[in-house]
């Protein structure tokens, strides 16, 4: 038993140290190595025809914001080159009416109403892709508010025929609502400013995130459309594109504002979905990815670490159990080292890949100050994620073992407009702080005004 525990502790330590080194390498690359061309000089010069797809299910509280922001977008409002397709997916609230009202006044908005057929993001996108006319499909979740110049920045990389998808940067706008939103803000900063940018610099696998990003229609068709059986269609598409040799570009300046979960219950459900979807991709595509002739060995290693990231949670739990066995077995020196590594690396690795070093440097790069003081509280986020992901994957492997299908895709609850009390209609639970919301939207408006003045 001691031997088995030693072996487990060793394997866990090696895996976690690998992730830790990866994070340090990313942060150092982002800070000191050559930053890869991100096509921003082409912004405004390469303007392909773009179809914006926005899946919506009961989104009456947030639908106007995203539509208004897109109508304000600094992209030629030429019907041949620009169309907005909000998709009303089985909504039972006023979403459909709102979309029709907007369409009445603006011909660029072409709502698609779905009252029959399969529900969920992937089937919705699949149906909308059929009617979309753009050579580039840009996808937004309904709670996202794109920056005014974002579309230009997202469209520019498609000038490179090898680019299959482009991902922008996501910035939370409801940061002040709760401790969780503040921690998520830190996590997002590290995940995008450092992690995604470094992976792009290093020619690894920057992730197309399924929202605030675009995909070339030809690449999508080559990769085989949106997979409705997947819970994380974004990760799946990233891997499928990579296997076929398409590049995913990451544009740090293409900023989009999102609403992050304001309470832990919503966050738990979000992590559960990501963990199961991601791990499903791991099983589906690991072999194909490793055999792909289009990927370098570095990209393959990064792909394995990317797809396997949620498996680290049960590994950490397993490692801790091994440490307990070793502790009671009188193996004092080994558990000391193992516990040391597990404590350090577990803390650094979970939470959307953002280690404390990545987060710290990203805050400084963004010009942030006081919010970095919350860094040590990320331990709560980390422990919570470890427990949640472990339980989610236990359920997932249980389902696999008994041959049961994956749980259905579920939308993350919204909090805007004080939409906080969970009433089962797919909106928020908990309470939203109107002051912080106002602050967030003011922030967005101020940014847009600033951009307008800079452009003019």
């Amino acid at each position, binding site marked *: 038993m001691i031997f088995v525990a030693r072996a487990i502790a060793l394997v866990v330590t090696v895996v976690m140290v690998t992730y830790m080194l990866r994070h340090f390498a990313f942060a150092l690359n982002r800070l000191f190595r050559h930053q890869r061309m991100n096509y921003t000089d082409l912004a405004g010069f390469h303007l392909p025809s773009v179809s914006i797809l926005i899946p919506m299910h009961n989104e009456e509280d947030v639908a106007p914001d995203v539509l208004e922001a897109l109508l304000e977008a600094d992209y030629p409002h030429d019907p041949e080159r620009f169309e907005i397709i909000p998709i009303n997916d089985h909504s039972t609230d006023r979403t459909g009416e709102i979309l029709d009202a907007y369409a009445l006044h603006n011909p660029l908005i072409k709502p698609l109403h779905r009252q029959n057929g399969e529900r969920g993001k992937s089937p919705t996108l699949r149906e909308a892709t059929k009617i979309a006319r753009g050579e580039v499909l840009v996808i937004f979740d309904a709670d996202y508010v794109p920056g005014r110049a974002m579309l230009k920045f997202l469209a520019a990389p498609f000038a490179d025929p090898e680019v299959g998808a482009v991902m922008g940067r996501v910035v939370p706008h409801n940061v002040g609502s709760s401790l969780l939103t503040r921690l998520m803000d830190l996590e997002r900063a590290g995940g995008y400013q450092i992690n995604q940018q470094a992976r792009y610099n290093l020619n690894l696998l920057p992730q197309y995130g399924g929202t605030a990003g675009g995909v070339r229609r030809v690449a999508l068709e080559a990769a085989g459309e949106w997979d409705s059986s997947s819970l994380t269609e974004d990760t799946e598409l990233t891997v499928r594109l990579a296997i076929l040799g398409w590049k995913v570009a990451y544009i740090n300046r293409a900023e989009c504002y999102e609403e992050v979960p304001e309470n832990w219950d919503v966050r738990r459900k979000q992590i559960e979905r990501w963990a199961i979807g991601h791990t499903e991709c791991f099983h589906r595509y690991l072999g194909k990815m490793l055999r792909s002739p289009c990927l370098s060995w570095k990209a393959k290693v990064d792909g394995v670490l990317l797809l396997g990231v949620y498996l680290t949670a049960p590994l950490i739990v397993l490692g801790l159990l091994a440490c307990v066995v070793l502790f009671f077995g009188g193996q*004092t020196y080994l558990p*000391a080292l193992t516990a040391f590594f597990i404590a350090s690396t577990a803390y650094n690795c979970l939470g959307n890949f953002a280690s*404390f070093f990545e987060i710290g440097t990203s805050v400084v790069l963004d*010009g942030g*100050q006081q919010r*970095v003081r919350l860094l*040590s509280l990320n331990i*709560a986020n980390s422990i*919570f994620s470890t427990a949640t992901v472990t339980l989610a994957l236990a359920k997932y492997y249980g389902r696999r073992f008994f041959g049961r299908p994956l749980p259905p895709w579920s939308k993350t609850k919204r909090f805007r407009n004080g939409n906080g009390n969970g009433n089962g209609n797919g909106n928020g639970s908990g309470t939203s702080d109107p002051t912080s919301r106002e602050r967030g939207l003011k922030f967005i408006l101020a940014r847009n005004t600033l951009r307008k003045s800079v452009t003019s």
Partner: protein
Amino acid sequence: MPFVKSFLFQGLAVAALADTLLLWQMPRILQWHSQVIQTFLDWARVPWQMGREITLVPGITARLLQTSYLNYQEYPYYPWAFLGGAIAVFLIGYRLWPTPIRPLVFLLPASLAITLIYLEIVSPLVPYTPEDFCSIWYHGEAYIWLLIPWIFAVSFFTLAVPFVMKIGWLPLLISYAFLWSAVRLTLALTTFHYFGPIWMPFTYFIFGFLADFMYIVTFYSLALDRAARWLATRREIWQ
């Protein structure tokens, strides 16, 4: 640029120097550490005596402290009472604990339960005496003290702020590490003396290395906050 590559080498040089100093002064530091614990133990009325000598790194030794722990054969209901209390605290407070803290709080009854099962089924004694526990503690802590300068070298010294602003944090953090380590070890030994060895794994896993990383990251975040404020006053153009 808020970060400068050459400062990384500056940080590495400082880390090497700091470790050399630490190794040079380690016997004194350990002696001071031991004296602080002795004083704290006296305050807590925990009897102690000097124990055996161990080698931490080649050439550096530390004298351990011998204390005792509560004998559960005399107080057989104590471990059950602790476990029951921990379970009650967890269950009663479950709704009150902030959600992310719940898994951490769960570790308390879990660790007590595992230890109790061990004490009931495998052996009436845990595998370590308090002196052994001190030995494990010193081994782990000494390596962390030596690691701290390197963590700071990579993560903090690369910032384009004056050297004085950066170097000040290192002695502050290391001093805190010494003192906090002494406080935690005293608390652990006191707990074993009054409440018995059932608390040993909890103290080891939660109060040990995890606590170390908490304060290291806290210091890092505070240092970064100060540096970011300074950088903001320089009207730097961010990349």
